[in-house]
């Protein structure tokens, strides 16, 4: 026993420079929230984690850029004015990838601290429970925004470079920047809120991931099936229970565009603002569920 303890005592003696008090700045609650936000945003992309986490998160983010890259490749080879992916239909191309990204990222953001019981350390610091939820929610939201905006930015600049009149192209398309940002914000908010609401219910990562995927798949399928089953134009309202259709409708509404002919929501019986209202409702509901979960949690 003494053989084990002696070396460390010796080390303590050698390295002990005396305890120093800390009289420097204490930046308080807002700084604590932003620190947790940056830490969580890094976690969304697997930074500061193992290589598997990085592979999944960054791999999916890369896959979400494939349609944009394909469009750019086509534009480079075929000089003609050919649009394979428009901004208003970009979400429809990547919705499944985004759902998968949520399934990977959301449990990392809200499940990890429950799993390792680190919450006690956060809540015994200057953070309140709602501060914690806010930092986590914004982290996933910003993560999703990055995944959504990078390919669309690629699309915009790439298309501009491919045309012979770069400046003219940008001038013509300047108007699409606000709806690109607006629609991405709504998509990120709703998908982020809903997946956090589901993922925070369990500390177990795989259950949480599975539940998020199942929700997006089942609810979307259910909406489509109900729409087919219910006769007449009333059936169209069934799309409002499908998160993917809600977002698709919202994106088209924000771009003030008509859905593609092959889209499920082509020619729905109601105005696109209903989709937008539903997206806002789902976002608020999701956020409320997350907030409630952490407010009630025994530490």
């Amino acid at each position: 026993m003494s053989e084990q303890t002696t070396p460390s005592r010796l080390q303590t003696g050698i390295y002990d420079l005396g305890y120093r008090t800390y009289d420097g700045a204490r930046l308080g609650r807002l700084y604590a929230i932003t620190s947790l936000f940056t830490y969580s945003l890094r976690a969304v992309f697997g930074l500061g984690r193992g290589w598997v986490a990085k592979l999944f998160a960054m791999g999916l983010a890369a896959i979400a850029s494939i349609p944009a890259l394909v469009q750019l490749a086509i534009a480079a080879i075929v000089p003609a004015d050919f649009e394979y992916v428009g901004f208003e239909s970009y979400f429809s191309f990547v919705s499944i990838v985004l759902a998968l990204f949520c399934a990977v990222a959301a449990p990392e953001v809200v499940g990890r601290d429950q799993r390792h019981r680190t919450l006690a350390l956060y809540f015994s610091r200057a953070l309140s429970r709602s501060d914690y939820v806010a930092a986590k929610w914004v982290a996933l939201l910003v993560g999703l925004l990055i995944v959504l905006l990078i390919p669309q930015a690629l699309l915009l600049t790439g298309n501009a470079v491919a045309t012979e009149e770069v400046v003219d192209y940008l001038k013509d398309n300047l108007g699409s920047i606000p709806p690109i940002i607006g629609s991405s914000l709504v998509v990120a908010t709703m998908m982020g809120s809903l997946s956090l609401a589901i993922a925070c219910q369990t500390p177990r990562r795989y259950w949480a991931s599975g539940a998020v995927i199942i929700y997006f798949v089942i609810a979307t399928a259910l909406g489509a099936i109900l729409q087919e089953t219910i006769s007449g134009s009333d059936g169209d309202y069934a799309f409002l229970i499908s998160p993917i259709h809600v977002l698709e409708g919202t994106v088209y509404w924000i771009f003030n565009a008509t859905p593609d002919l092959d889209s499920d929501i082509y020619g729905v019986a109601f105005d696109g603002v209903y989709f937008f209202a539903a997206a806002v409702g789902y976002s608020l509901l999701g956020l409320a569920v997350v907030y409630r979960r952490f407010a009630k949690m025994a530490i």
Partner: protein
Amino acid sequence: MLALDSLSLQVGEGVTGIVGANGAGKSTLIKILLGLLNPTSGGATLLGFDVVTQGPTLRQYVGYMPEHDCLPPDVSATDFVIHMARINGLPSSAARERAAETLRHVGLFEERYRAIGTYSTGMKQRVKLAQALVHDPKLLMLDEPTNGLDPAGRDEMLDLIRRIGRDFGISMLMSSHLLGEIERVCDHLVVIDAGRLMRADTIATFTGEMQVLTIEVDEKQEELQARLVAKGLGVTADGPLLLISIDGQAPYDVVRDEVVDLGVGLLRMEQRRHRLEDLFRVETEETADV
């Protein structure tokens, strides 16, 4: 479930031990003081802040080491403690500096760059202590800090805690179900049982009451006991020993006179201190009677 029942308590600076059996309400008390649990009624003031209404401000100056595991396994101790320091409001450069210093103080050196998952229980306990200490708190709350440690690790942890209390001048509230640990480290003692306060006092007062004079004679032990009782002393026999309670001045002269009078040989006479365990046992037996 009632975990704490109308418990009123005042604690000063220094190291205070909260002792009680498992489930006595030690962790609940600490969690209420930290604002992790809300009391159904009543309140508390810590460092001049109200724990219910001024929780966030108060918690800037408090460090907490929970009883349970609370460390992510796939992060290094350095990264984790830096992150926790930032959550405490320390700017990045200060957080890095303080994390390195604090980890060194708790005895983690090169291994601090390794993932926490590879650590022994003793090393994890040190990381838990470091994250509670990194922002230089005015008050440290340690919930069963020696939990799960082997005897050597336990000794090292207690040494460390004593050093933090004495050398670093940080006040501490430490819970334990082992009185021996509290006695080694603390200046004050709070005894709780089944959510009720049994007693709160300084360790010195507790142990002061437990002064006892032990004597051993070669013969006529019972006769001597009777004579000493007749002189008004509280005497109990413990095998070959006679234990005389000391209330103020030790009755050496009385003992000497009676021994000479009886003409017996005095083999042993020493002043002894009961350990806290003995006191605690007496107290719990008394309450069991009530």
